[in-house]
């Protein structure tokens, strides 16, 4: 165990290094230099070359990459020429709202998926189980934006209960307190995550129910409620730990689409706007942040699973 942690962290750092190289080279191939953005679309070739030389965009790719890493390590994520702000400042304005949307949806999804999985396993093949499985299956097959459109149509336009656009406030506290505009994105995102988790939870709970220690607990006379609470919940949650850690990239992608459809001014909408305007510094920084979060998520999931499951520690 003591040797595992440093090795795992070391592997993550190596992968981080590899990922940053891949992303940087890929983006550099697609968007070699922002000269045209700064000088205007009618700039002539001579001034573009001069600008590139002045700002270091004509150096070999490796040199540019090393310079970028150096810049990153000093906290400078780049400068957006289209929006005339540093990328770090743009992220600073928006990350709290994105984190809130993703975080609360994930929290609700976990709180729903675990009891749902246990319910489905305990009452397997009854009407309740089949209905839940079918709903989860259909939701899983649905593209995210279609669910959002249906929700907006039904709950915001036909029956004006909620707002059709997410909260535009710049303060996270106002966003948290907004019950009229935020429920739709949060509930839809939660449903989509639950649809992905419910199948794993169901099969994990069924596997646990087939174990011998459940039989022993029942044979000893433990009430069914306690069998479920004391034994089933704890053991069925273990795959959930891995799932949560591995769902960081899906969460980022999900929030991208949700923010685009509901016009929620978070990091996802910033990424989408930058795609349209080809603001490659923002794209590069966002993809790198996403990759860092993914690797960190995997690392945390691995470590958490090792901590939570003694069988892994002792093997």
């Amino acid at each position: 165990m003591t040797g595992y942690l440093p090795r795992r962290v070391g592997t993550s750092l190596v992968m981080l290094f590899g990922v940053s190289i891949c992303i940087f080279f890929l983006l550099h191939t697609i968007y070699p230099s922002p000269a045209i953005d700064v000088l205007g679309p009618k700039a002539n070739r001579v001034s573009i070359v001069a600008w590139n030389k002045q700002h270091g965009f004509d150096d070999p790719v490796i040199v540019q990459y090393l310079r970028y890493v150096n810049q990153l390590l000093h906290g400078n994520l780049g400068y957006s020429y289209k929006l005339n702000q540093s990328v770090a400042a743009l992220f600073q304005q928006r990350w709290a709202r994105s984190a809130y949307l993703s975080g609360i949806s994930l929290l609700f999804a976990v709180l729903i998926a675990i009891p749902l999985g246990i319910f489905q396993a305990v009452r397997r093949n009854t009407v309740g189980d089949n209905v839940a499985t079918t709903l989860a299956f259909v939701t899983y097959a649905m593209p995210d934006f279609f669910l959002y459109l249906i929700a907006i149509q039904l709950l915001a336009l036909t029956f004006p209960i909620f707002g059709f656009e997410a909260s535009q406030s710049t303060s996270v506290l106002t966003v948290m307190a907004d019950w009229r505009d935020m429920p739709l994105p949060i509930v839809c995102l939660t449903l989509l995550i639950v649809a992905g988790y419910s199948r794993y939870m169901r099969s994990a709970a069924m596997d646990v129910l087939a174990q011998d220690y459940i039989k022993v607990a029942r044979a000893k006379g433990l009430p069914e409620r306690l069998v479920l609470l004391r034994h089933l919940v704890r053991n069925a949650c273990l795959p959930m730990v891995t799932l949560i850690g591995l769902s960081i990239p899906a969460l980022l992608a999900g929030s991208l689409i949700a923010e685009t459809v509901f016009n929620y001014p978070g990091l996802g909408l910033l990424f989408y706007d930058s795609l349209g305007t080809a603001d490659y510094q923002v794209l590069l920084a966002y993809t790198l942040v996403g990759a860092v979060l993914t690797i960190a998520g995997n690392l945390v999931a691995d470590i958490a699973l090792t901590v939570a499951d003694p069988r892994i520690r002792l093997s």
Partner: protein
Amino acid sequence: MTHIASPVTPLDVTRAPEGGEVGPVRSGWRLGLREFARNRLAVAGLGVLVFFVLFCFGGPFVYHANVLGTNLAATNLPPGPGHPLGTDNLGFDELGLLMKGGQAALEIGFLAAAIGIVIGAIWGAVSGLAGGIADSIMMRVVDVFLSIPFLFIVLIVAVRYGASVLGLSLIIGVFTWLVPARLVRGEVLTLRVREFVSAARAAGSGRLRLIYRHLIPNALGVITVNVTFNIADAILAVATLGFLGFGLHYPKVDWGDMLSNGTAYLQDGYWWLIYPVGACIVLVVMACNLLGDALRDSLDVRLRRW
């Protein structure tokens, strides 16, 4: 004497089992197919998929509709005579657009999954067979690419290079080969210790022949299941790209693009621009997922009922 009902039925010696006959040889594939046919949902999924292929590729031969020339006198018509599913904001017939968009979606889905599985299977098989440091390096490369969020990188590349069926297939395929590579490597690791591999090696087969003649055919079960899920994921990815505006454009049609156009008319209540397209996407993806689940169950020998 009281008659005691025995829980065990007495052995009926007048009906001894017949012996001596050998039944028809049932190969592994036949048995898997029989299991598959028993699963009604799976057959329904296959039926839906076949229906969509016929509808999208054969439909235009039967139903001639206007999907190329704008007709501003007939924009946003509700379903009615001449237009079973109405028209969109440029006068194109919705049903015709559905067929044409379906062609693109299915083509990209199958092509992307095919590219993904070919690259992934070869990478995984080579990595599993090689072992040692080459295996570690190849799997580290897979891990590195898996750490890059799929949607972001696909979007970034699609903005520049993605306006054609081939372009989109390549982009999605190039980022879908990672999971099949891992799966095939796992299968190869279990297969390479079997006797038939040692026998083949003893008979003098080189590593290349081992891969394409022995390892990959035996890993075909896992590969097939993964391909169906890849098709579903590719169709969803194309729809997402189209919805965000980076898919196919006029004169080609894309289901996601149709949905994105329909979103503008959500408040006007033009439901025919949104729900039929969405339903098509959901049905095709569900059919592929059902197929994948059923294939996985039918190829798992432990679940078979003899």
